[in-house]
């Protein structure tokens, strides 16, 4: 997030798109609703009529995979009406002419057609957004998990820049990160192209710095992303896979392919708190401590580094992940030792500019129990509430216009429905934790497919009926839930469950830049059993 969660209550307008906030970031949703009570406007754009849509001033029920067209259309209207922030663009941005040129073609009529919405609603949303003093955009995987995800993210930034909403309090572009520490994992360079602090592995200066800090020869070749790792394991180039705390058997697209690859990988190590579906396929399984059984930090979606603290002992011989990794390092001849996570954080601060001022002493309850938001470069820096204040981090805000392109799979005779997926309030990701909490299972016991009433009657299926759902990659059985949350040509399946797993069906086609699979849009058909 460019801005902070607390700033939500001060915003004039929220544009929520590709995020079912009430179920996936519930506490942020409570802040949004409080902002609405105080008079903030709300625009929601989503393929599903999510709960927040009820509170919206404009709700755009778009066809999955048409986000870029929608944003381009909004910008078309804003520029046509002369509502752009001319001063801001002039002083703080560049490449504006190219944007203007590209969005010229995205007339409300054309966009309404692509997105399957009403052009009047589009115009209304554009005016609302542009006229708000402090407008904030919130998005999540509904934007990024498309083959056009990166372009949509750029289009969102374009829209925010167009109206001068970046670098201001209670505005900004705010991706809501799904997992507790996805921000921290990215910050630490658990990515194939960057070291901690987003320092590029190909940069020879950077490389030298880390070779010195880590006393080791380092590769300057960009590594493989997860989908590429799986492909490389499939063809035998990757022979050793080490999976820590992830469950690709449920979370990755095209489960059948994943299972085959993991089964055939020569040596698979899985480290987790449970024997997950992925761990079942491992050669060695290492028992890990859970969050309450160790010390450490998580970095939340607003870049805030906060402590976790050991409250209880891990069961049996389970050990904290950091200790296991260190012992493996040591066992293969890399001798660096750490006595505790605080010492690891010291090293992080020494090589990661954004974390330069972070230490356990400063995160202590009595000192700053509130955590610190990076960038926090020095040990006297108070952290950064919102980014790009006064200037964009890169100097000028760069408009990066791109055209809309269709999802890789479009409905046809054989597969006439667009399937999208997501989470429900009561479960988390692959359910390895929430699936073992009785009450949560009682609340949300099993997989289902949301089907619009008109589609259901055409297919002659009824509520709770078990049906077969088939895509080009596989088929599952699941229960029908008839609801007008989804449009007639769209269906939705939560991806948490092993039985009736949405990811048996999803399309692994990747966004070329971010390498994110197109989870949120593939085509299926429903058959009666």
């Amino acid at each position: 997030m460019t801005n902070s969660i607390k700033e939500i209550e001060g915003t004039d307008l929220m544009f929520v798109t590709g995020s079912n906030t009430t179920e996936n970031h519930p506490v942020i949703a409570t802040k949004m609703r409080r902002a609405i009570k105080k008079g903030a406007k709300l625009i929601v754009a989503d393929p599903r009529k999510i709960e927040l849509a009820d509170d919206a001033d404009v709700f755009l029920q778009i066809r999955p995979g048409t986000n870029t067209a929608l944003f381009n259309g909004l910008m078309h209207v804003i520029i046509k009406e002369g509502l752009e922030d001319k001063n801001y663009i002039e002083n703080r941005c560049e490449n504006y002419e190219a944007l203007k040129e590209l969005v010229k073609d995205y007339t409300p009529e054309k966009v309404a057609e692509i997105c399957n919405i009403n052009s009047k609603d589009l115009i209304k949303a554009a005016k609302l957004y542009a006229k708000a003093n402090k407008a904030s955009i919130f998005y999540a995987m509904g934007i990024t998990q498309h083959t056009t995800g990166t372009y949509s993210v750029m289009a969102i930034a374009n829209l925010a820049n167009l109206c001068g909403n970046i670098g201001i309090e209670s505005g900004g572009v705010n991706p809501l990160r799904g997992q507790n520490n996805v921000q921290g994992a990215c910050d630490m360079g658990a990515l194939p192209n960057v070291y901690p602090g987003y320092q590029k592995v190909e940069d020879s200066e950077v490389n030298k710095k880390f070779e010195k800090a880590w006393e080791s020869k380092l590769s300057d070749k960009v590594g493989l992303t997860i989908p590429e790792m799986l492909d490389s394991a499939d063809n035998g180039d990757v022979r050793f896979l080490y999976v820590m705390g992830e469950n690709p058997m449920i979370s990755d697209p095209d489960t059948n392919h994943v299972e085959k690859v993991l089964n055939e990988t020569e040596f698979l190590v899985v480290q987790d708190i449970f024997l997950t579906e992925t761990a079942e396929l491992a050669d060695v399984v290492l028992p890990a401590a859970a969050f309450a059984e160790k010390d450490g930090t998580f970095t939340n979606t607003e870049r805030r580094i906060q402590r976790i603290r050991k409250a209880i002992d891990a069961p049996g011989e389970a050990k904290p992940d950091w200790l296991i990794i260190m012992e493996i390092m040591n066992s293969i001849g890399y001798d660096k030792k750490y006595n505790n996570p605080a010492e690891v954080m010291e090293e992080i601060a020494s090589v990661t500019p954004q974390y330069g001022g972070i230490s356990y002493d400063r995160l202590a309850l009595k000192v700053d129990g509130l955590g610190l938001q990076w960038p926090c470069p020095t040990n006297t820096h108070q952290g950064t509430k919102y980014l790009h204040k006064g200037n964009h981090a890169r100097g000028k805000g760069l408009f990066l216009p791109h055209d809309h392109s269709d999802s890789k799979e479009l409905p046809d005779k054989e597969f006439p429905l667009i399937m999208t997926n997501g989470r429900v309030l009561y479960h988390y990701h692959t359910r390895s934790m929430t699936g073992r909490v009785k009450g949560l299972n009682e609340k949300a016991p099993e997989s289902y497919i949301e089907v619009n009433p008109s589609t259901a009657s055409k297919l002659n299926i009824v509520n709770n009926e078990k049906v077969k759902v088939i895509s080009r990659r596989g088929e599952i059985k699941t229960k029908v839930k008839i609801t007008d949350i989804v449009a007639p040509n769209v269906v939705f399946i939560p991806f948490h469950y092993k039985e009736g797993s949405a990811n048996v069906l999803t399309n692994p086609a990747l966004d070329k830049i971010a390498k994110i699979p197109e989870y949120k849009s593939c085509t299926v058909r429903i058959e009666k059993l």
Partner: protein
Amino acid sequence: MVNVIINGHKMNVPKDYTILKACDDLGIHIPTLCHDERIDPHAACRLCIVEIEGMDELPTSCSTKVKDGMKIKTHSNRVRKARKDILSLIVANHPLDCIMCDNSGNCKLQEYCYEYGISEVEFKGEKKNYKTDYSNPFYYSDQNKCINCGKCVRICNELQCVGAIGFNERGFKTHIGAPFDMELNESECVSCGNCVSVCPVGALMPKIKERIRYEELKEVRTTCPYCGVGCQMDLLVLDGKIVDVKPADGPSNENLLCVKGRFGFKFLDHPDRLKKPLIKRDGKFVETSWEEAYKIIAKNIKKIKNENGPDAFAGFSSARCSTEENYLFQKLFRAALGTNNVDHCARL
């Protein structure tokens, strides 16, 4: 800033403060059953009354702002007597099976009755007779114990913004519930438990198997392990086990949690937890020692590195693990194995 005299001491306090807040900051404890910092004062329980020189009645300190020159007495005989009367009236309708109550030791009413010396029931009132609603998997509602402070209703409406519960009926019959007294589990309730956390008595209670000895509870501040909001919470530990979770005042959550953070901790002591390293022999897992597991891993690493070089290794790091662990994981791959083949499910 204004000058006030509290219990004979001159104090300097911000002028927009209420008397209650000013006293709280100065460490003077005024009892209240209905007050919550996050919502506007309600003056429902009236326990926070104080005496102000020159005023006949006793105003509620939660809803009265400080004024320059104000002389306040927080615990005068008159105030104490009035508080005692209020408490007696509440207790008159309250069941007196404190020893049996799950909230014993954590109950504000119990605490204040003790403090104000209410030992026997001075006003014999009618007791309520509601059926306890156990329908929700995480908490129950026993309206016989409810004192109608209204905190839960206001938290649900004004902070959680769900509005699942409200006041049903009037007068003596007033009680808290979902519309038309439908079962809570059938209502709009999203099981966030934020109402439960603020209930000052034992009317809204988490379903906990263990009998809690509150004086032995240890609280450990931590960050919720689920989504990226990073809510702060206190784990309540008894006999080496987590028995409950309390929302804490973190910058992103300000004492709120969702159902996962509040009630989703039971996986921790689930019997399925992995307790020993496992290796697969003939398609079956067998338990092994850490030493042995490390040996096998190191042996395979050595062999594969010799045959194919560093790029034959690849690692999935984890957005569930700590920042320090992610740092070490990528360092293992980069510095110890020599490859950049490391990624995590940021994309998923």
